[in-house]
Every structure is written in C-alpha cells, then in structure tokens.
C-alpha cells in the first residue's frame, strides 16, 4: 500500500507534498496514527473509528502519566481493532499489535511513544520507557 505521507510535527500533522510516499507497513502505521488522533464518532461512515484520547485529555482524565496511560491503552486497543477490521484483504503486512506509551505531560501536550508490529514481524517505532 502506498499513500501520501503525513509529517507528524510539533505543530501538528501536515502533508508531505515533496513527492515522498508512505509505503508498505508504514502506510498502515500512518493510518493507525490518524485513527488515534481522530475523535471517536466523528466519522459517520465508520462509527468505531477514532479514539477518545483528545476528549479524555480535555476533560481532565489524563492529569498524570498513570491516568494518561490507562486511556492510551484503551485507545491503542480501539486503533488496533479498527485498523484490522478495515484493512485490505490483499495487504500482506497487516497490523498485529500497537502499543502507546505515554512519555511526558508538559503544558497542554502529552507525548506518546508508539510501537507497531506487523504480521510479518516488522516493527515501526519504539516504546521508550517499558
């Protein structure tokens, strides 16, 4: 699978229109990150798409790393379930596992490390404080 690449920067994600494509399992991981950042219920076509991460953060459910990790674990499960259920049957490198590890809470930002593993054993990203 090939797609337009997104760059996840500190200002938020933006399109990489320089000609770089996101390919293979990286495309699947990118879709998983988009799913993680999508508010659950905001897509009328796919009601199970998205997570409550943003809503949890703004409603005081992630005031410390412990609480944030609890919400992040739920979000990871949601993302895994959705990506697996909507993946293409022709995709040979499907998402087998995804982990969210909350790293820091600073100002209004929560830093989450992501580690995704494919069905063929590829790993993208790293969870720092396991």
């Amino acid at each position, binding site marked *: 699978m*090939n*797609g337009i690449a997104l760059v996840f920067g500190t200002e938020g994600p933006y399109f990489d229109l320089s000609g770089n494509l996101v390919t293979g399992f990286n495309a699947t991981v990118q*879709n998983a990150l988009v799913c993680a950042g999508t508010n659950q219920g905001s897509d009328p*076509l796919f009601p199970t798409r998205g997570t409550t991460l943003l809503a949890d953060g703004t409603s005081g459910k992630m005031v410390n790393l412990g609480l944030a990790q609890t919400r992040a674990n739920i979000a990871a499960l949601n993302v895994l379930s959705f990506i697996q259920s*909507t993946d293409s049957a022709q995709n040979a490198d499907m998402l087998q596992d995804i982990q969210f590890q909350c790293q820091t809470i600073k100002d209004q930002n929560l830093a989450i490390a992501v580690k995704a593993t494919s069905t063929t054993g590829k790993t993208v990203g790293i969870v720092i404080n396991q």
Partner: protein
Amino acid sequence: MQNPPLLQDYLPDMDQVPISSIVSIRQQFMNYLAQWWPQLDTRPGSIFGDLHLTPAAVLDAAAALAVTNLFSDLELTNVANGVINNPDFVRAYLKNFGVSAQAGASSTGTMAMVFSANQTYVFSGSVIFNFGSSAFQVSPTVGDPVIISPMGSTTGKYVLTPYANGQFVVYLPVTGPAGASVTDSTIANTNLGQTNLVSVTAAGNFDPGTTPSGLPQLAAQAMLLYPAANLSSRRGALSFITQNWPNLVAAAVTVTGDNEMIRAGQNPLGINQSALDIFVRSQVNYASSSVVAALTYNPDLRGWTGGLPFPSPPAFFSPSTGAFQANLFDEQTGSSLLYAQSTDTKLDNPGVSFSLKERLGVLLSDQTPTAFNNAVITPITSDNVTNAALNITGEYWGSTFQLLPDRAITMQFVAVTAINNVITVIANVYDSNNNESGTVYFVPDSAAGALTGIILQSDPGYKRFFNGLNLVVDIPGCIWTPASVVGAKFTFGFRGKTANFTLNYLYEPMLPVIDTAIQSSDNKSVNTAPLARSFVPCNITQFVVNYRYKRGTTVDAATAQKAIFNYVNSLAYPNAYEESQIGMIMLNNGATGVSSVTKTGMVYPSLAQIYVDQNQNQTAIPPVITTDLSIPSTDFGFGPRNVSYILPMAVIQFNATVY
C-alpha cells in the same frame, strides 16, 4: 418543457442518504481502484481514502437517489399518488401528455340581506360574509363600496324591496373559495357593523365552482387519456397492451392496410371504419380445458352436427391428443369438418377467427350411430287458433351452430305474401333454449289438393330450425286460405338423436379480459373497431435438431429442449424464427454445432375448414404448411405479424452425431 431537470434539483437531504449505501459504494470503489492501482492506499485513515474516496462515495450514493427521484417523477403512478419530488418539472412533463393545470373557478351565489329600515346602505366590498367555514365577499361586479339604495330609487343598481314584517331585502351576488358548497337558506355571519341588518342568508344553492387541478389529479388524467389515445394506432395499441398487461409473452397489432387484416366494416352511418386487431399470448403454455358438445345426428349427412360451446375462444386443439383431428371426439372415429361463422353481421369474414366474435360448429361423420338419446317431439300447444292445426312428423337433423340440442319453439303466423306467385304464409320462429329467432314459410301442398300448407324446406330458415321435420298446417274443410291462420301461435319442442362429445382444447385465458378492456367505452377510440384475438396458430408437428458433439463430452438435452420450447413459443413480430438461435442454445448446452433442424408446421387461419357467411355461403379456409417455419401472407388474414408458434415439448427431438 423549457428547462430540463438538473440532477442537483433531485439531490436528497443528508439524512435521506443511508450510511450503509455510502459504505457499500466506498467499498466497491476500493475494489475497483485496486484493479487499476493495487498499491494505492484507499483504507480509512489514508489521505486518498479520507479526502477523496469517502466524499466520492457520498456523492455517488446521493446521485443514485437523485436519479431514483427523477425516475419517480417520470412514473405517473407515483405522481398520481402524490409522490412528487420536483413539482416544476412534473408540471412541465405532464404537458407532454396534453394535460395542464386548469385554473380554479370561484364559488358563486346570491345572498339575501334583510334590513329593518328602508334607507341607503354603504359598506366596503371587502366585508366578509361567512357561510359555514367559507368566507365570501360581495362580487366585484357590484362595485366597491357597495351601495344599496332605498325602495323606490330609480338610480340605484341594488334597491331594497319589501320583505315580511316591514323589513326590506336586497339580493347581492357573492364569490368565495373554489369548491365551497353552500345550500339554500344557510345563514351567514358577518363583520358588517350595520345595526339595521337583520339577517344574511343564501338565496338558493351556491355554485361551488371548480378547484384548481393538482399535479396528482393531472397525472391521473394523463394515465386515463394516454391509453384512450393509444388504441387508434399500432404503436399506441401495443403500448396500451404492454402497459396494462406487462406480463404477456407476446403481443402484436394489425391494422387496416396490413396483409393480415381482412376485417373491414362500416359504422351505422355508412362511414368506412378501420379495424385494429390485438393478438395476445400470456404464457408459453396455453391453458387447456375441455368442453362437452351435445350434437345431433343428421342421417342425410351421415354425421353428428351442432355448435361447440366454448366458454372462451379456443387458441388451438390440444396437440397432446392430436391436432385438429376427428379422433378428438371420443365416441366416433370418422372424419370431422369444422365450420366458423361471425357473430357480428358487420364483420362477416374469417378475420374474426380466434376471437369472441367467432362461433364454431362441427360435422362429425358417423355412418352407423350406435349410442345416442332418441329423437323426441313434444306435444303441440296452440294459442289464438280457430280453424287450423299444426302437425309435425319426421326427425330433427340438427343445425351447424346450434349449441343446445333441444329446441323450445314458439311459432306464430304473421302475414301472407306471394313467392313465385304462390300464396305463402310467413311465420316467425323463436327458440327460447338457444335464444335464436328467424322466419319460415308455408306454401300450399299440391299433393293434398291445396287444402294444407307445408313448410318451405328449401328456405335457410327451415334448414336452421326444423331441418328433417315435416311441418304441415291443416285447415279442415277449406282450400288453402292462409290469411285465416295469421295470428295463430303454436308452441312445441323437439330434438333429434343426440349424443355428447368431448373436445380438448387450448385457450388464452387473458383474451376475454383484454377484449372487455379494449371494447370498453372508456378505452375504445373513435371509428376504429378493436378486437382482441389469440394469435393465429402455427402448430409445429416436427422439430428435430441434428447436432454434433465431441466424444467424451455431454449435452444437456433436457435444458436445451426447455430453452427451445420457451424460445419458439414466445416468438412474436417483429421477431421471427431463426435457426441460429437454436444453434446458440445447443452450443450453450454442450453441443459443438447444429447441422440442421428438420421442422414442419401448419398454420391455421381458423380452427374451422369452412367459413359460413351470413347468407350461408361457404368458403374453404385451408391451412398452410411451412417447412422452414416462415410465415407467408395469404388471403385468409394471417402473416408474420399475427402468427404464433405452438411447439409441444414432446415434439422437440434431438438427433446426435458423436465424433
């Protein structure tokens, strides 16, 4: 129609587009694009999937609904039921059918205003008078303001006149909403602040006017008008038939000028009337039934004769028991001869065959009848007879189109005339059993010294009513003075030797229904005589498919047989029998090729061999053999347009060559 409808005019609201259909369409798009670009990521979350594919799926789902809505507006049944998506388009569309909205006409009437004082009254024309729930105003023709002059005024237009109890009345025209119904003496309420006003009532029933035409009403009108206009042309009649009976397997129309059309006539004013025949077939298998005909033995012709009491016009005789053969009749083995006659004196030729206007009769040869009911003549009763007696001897021989074998006759002598200078008395005859009437003649019996009258046996009336019987009028002690018997009435009954015969036949069950519809005054067009008929049958008696197939392969002959059966039995103009279709069917079922099809068919312009016109003249109607199943045109009213094949399943045979 000035502006064609734009699809966006029909786009549904968001909540009308089912999410499930969007998801389904999105998935179909994904599958389709994967064929072009297998690596393109179209999954939810992908840039392309989210920003292009999903909106495209939404548009596609909405467009599908828009098209559905547009088609719905084109379907008059929906419009007539009030389902209208784009009223402007529907209004313009309906104009194509010659119907357009008629403006409404207001309700009008006259009201009586009773005043207690004789003086001038002036009030605004906008004053409301409520008759029930309907608001009326004084008609604008009265003027505004309304001026009512006192009694005796010579200049006023509306002048008070004396009323009961020292009161005064004036009558004013009023108008109100279209459709408002107000009956005589209905009392009105009004906001007119006039202290001398005693009452306001309706003077007579109001005319309710007409309500403006709504679009559903117009659509219903169009649906009624469209078929009526249709029955005046071939294409229109076909549309009418297929619109009303969409499940027919075959329908064809012939009109005056076609080789197939031999009916012609004049209306009661003597104006040539064009004819239009509608041929229908509702199923590949005609319905089958049987009738029992009670026939009378005619020793002169050595056969059984009588009418065939078909409740519905036969399309053909049952091929399973032999096509149009004498041995269909289970009590004799001789040959048969069928006769046809039109029941409509204005349409007197074989062109009425296979319709409700044709009656059939039969003569079955039988040299030595063995089982039958004996002939009977019931006693004669007389009325208004002074000096004459009627004697009947002999045995009744039957009549070709007589449905019931027993005749119940009332015969009355009505006048005296001369035939070839012979004094002849005329008698009217009525058979209440068969509801037939006619005339017979009595002439002097020279052998009896001209004292008696005998029935004139050469007359068609005799052949029809009394064939085989001797009827003699005796006037005792007198010479032949028939004037003295005028007015005499005789009642009697008789039958000949009779026996029942069973006939199996095929028929088109929809024919009476369709004929009733097209003869209806609501549908019948001016100066065209429509007639529903079964197709002229081409009965196929031989159909052998000679085909080849490779050793080791199999041919599904049963499936091929059924496909050939359906194909041939549903053919109708402009389609014609094509050998290549048989080849295709065989190839589809495992054969490698068809070398030939051996076939024989017989076209029957009528089930009868002889047509008997109103003057009893007989015309032979020969069937026509075809060995290639092409349909020639003949003088007997058939051709490619109105022939349908009858191919029994059992007739379809296969002759295989393996290689």
